[in-house]
């Protein structure tokens, strides 16, 4: 990597290098021969125009980066809007790519996910993180990760709905019928503290490692015995062994006083 010497006010002959400007590192390749501080003299609209002029040498990147800097550090609302306008199609495409990977969440509105992803990015990507960013690519990668986690969040919600109402997978009719009920979930079911307490009781009923693995993967991860066997092929001889152990454990839970109390409390 070449570090260029710069004059008091100008950057010279920079092709692919690190540029220092007013104690600030502009850490990406650029080929502009503009005065230091030049970026700061540009209006947000000028920055957006230059950011849009994608060049093979990435000389457009400083302008994009400056837009992000003003939006994040200076909290410039206009820059936020321009970033939205510039990147929304990209975010839309990422969202659709994620949705295509997962048939379970095809009923989710992509528009909402796009906006949630941007919101999640604004929440997570602070000025401190921008200081660590070494390129616009890094910032966009972070935005991409926000898109993925937003889509995954929608999937978790969808799965939760299926578990609560015991909806067969890929049954949109049943899902639609249960939509209203899902808006008002049973508090007892969602109470994480209660779940923690129930899990402790289950764990206490487990007498050996095999049972503990089955309890965890059956009751917490909702895996079927075949899926458990695929994850732990050396721990069990065959799938029938998992059915046998799980049944024994369920019978023990059925007799357990603490578990009986939990179910009475849950009504």
């Amino acid at each position, binding site marked *: 990597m070449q570090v260029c010497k710069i004059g008091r006010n100008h950057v010279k002959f920079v092709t692919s290098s690190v540029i220092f400007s007013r104690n600030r590192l502009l850490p990406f390749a650029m080929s502009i021969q503009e005065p230091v501080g030049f970026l700061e003299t540009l209006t947000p609209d000028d920055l957006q125009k230059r950011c849009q002029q994608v060049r093979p040498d990435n000389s457009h990147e400083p302008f994009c980066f400056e837009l992000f800097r003003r939006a994040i550090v200076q909290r410039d609302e206009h820059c936020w809007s321009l970033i939205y306008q510039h990147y929304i199609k990209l975010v839309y495409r990422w969202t*659709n790519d994620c949705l295509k990977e997962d048939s379970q969440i095809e009923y989710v509105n992509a528009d909402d996910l796009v906006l949630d992803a941007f919101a999640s990015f604004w929440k997570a990507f602070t000025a401190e993180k921008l200081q660590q960013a070494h390129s616009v690519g890094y910032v966009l990668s972070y935005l991409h990760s926000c898109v993925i986690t937003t889509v995954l969040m929608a999937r978790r919600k969808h799965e939760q709905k299926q578990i609560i109402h015991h909806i067969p997978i890929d049954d949109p009719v049943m899902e639609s019928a249960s939509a209203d009920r899902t808006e008002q979930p049973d508090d007892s079911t969602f109470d994480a503290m209660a779940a923690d307490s129930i899990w402790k009781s289950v764990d206490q009923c487990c007498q050996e490692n095999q049972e503990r693995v089955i309890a965890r993967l059956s009751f917490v991860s909702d895996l079927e015995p075949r899926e458990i066997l695929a994850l732990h092929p050396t721990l069990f001889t065959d799938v029938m062994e998992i059915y046998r152990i*799980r*049944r024994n454990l369920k019978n023990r839970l059925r007799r357990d006083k603490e578990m009986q109390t939990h179910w009475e409390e849950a009504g």
Partner: protein
Amino acid sequence: MMSEPLNLPNGIEEWELEAFADGEALPYIERFIVQNPALWEQFMRNQRSERKLTQSLYRYDCPTLETIQSYYWNELDTGATHTIAEHLALCPHCAKEFQMVQRLVALPVAEPTSVAKQAAKRQPISAVPMPSLRGVLQEVTEQLQIVIATLLTPLTPAYATVTLRSDATQQPQGQSYTVLYEAGTTDVSLQVQQTVDNTVQIFGQILPTEPISFNHIRMIALRSTEQGYESNLDETGQFHLTELATGEHQLIISGTQQKIVIPSIDLNPR
């Protein structure tokens, strides 16, 4: 979970019924069920009852996706990093989610224009029309119904006439300011008021110049874990949000044909 024990004959075990119910090939269980439909019904009732255990415990201790994202970017402290690593080893769902983040974020980031350029390069000269990346992008653009609002400041007299027209009796008392946004053919006027309890209320009005109807708004706090705020618009396009936390927010106005988003509204005291 309070299921009744099944009174099964010798040679038939409850776990075998469970295996059969999951699709395992057990012909002798199939014959047994045909001969004992009442027992099968009781078994199914038990299964539904036992299902409550999974309903209560399903992914109860999974970290949020924000935490998984922070783990990916190495933003967590040592203790939290260790906890998440342990959880990923234990939980197949979170492990899969983390892998998806790893796999997709690792892909090279391409901006729309360069993607289109690459797609154009790859396009065979005499190719039979088929879905190309450019085609997909075009499709995405066409279905895009999101309009980004931009702030019109300072509020000039020309725009002042289209600011909030709500009922005078509902006008907030005390310090307030009005901001006007432009989103395509629609204007959005927000009157922001700081209240004595350090919260904010907003009187808003949507002013479409074309026959586009909007019916719902959603406000998301951007720099805090505060829950979002939602409200419906009245028939004149007005809405009123109360008890908003100060800080930055995103406003999404939804209609049947279009969504308007104001990416960032600063509700901090001015």
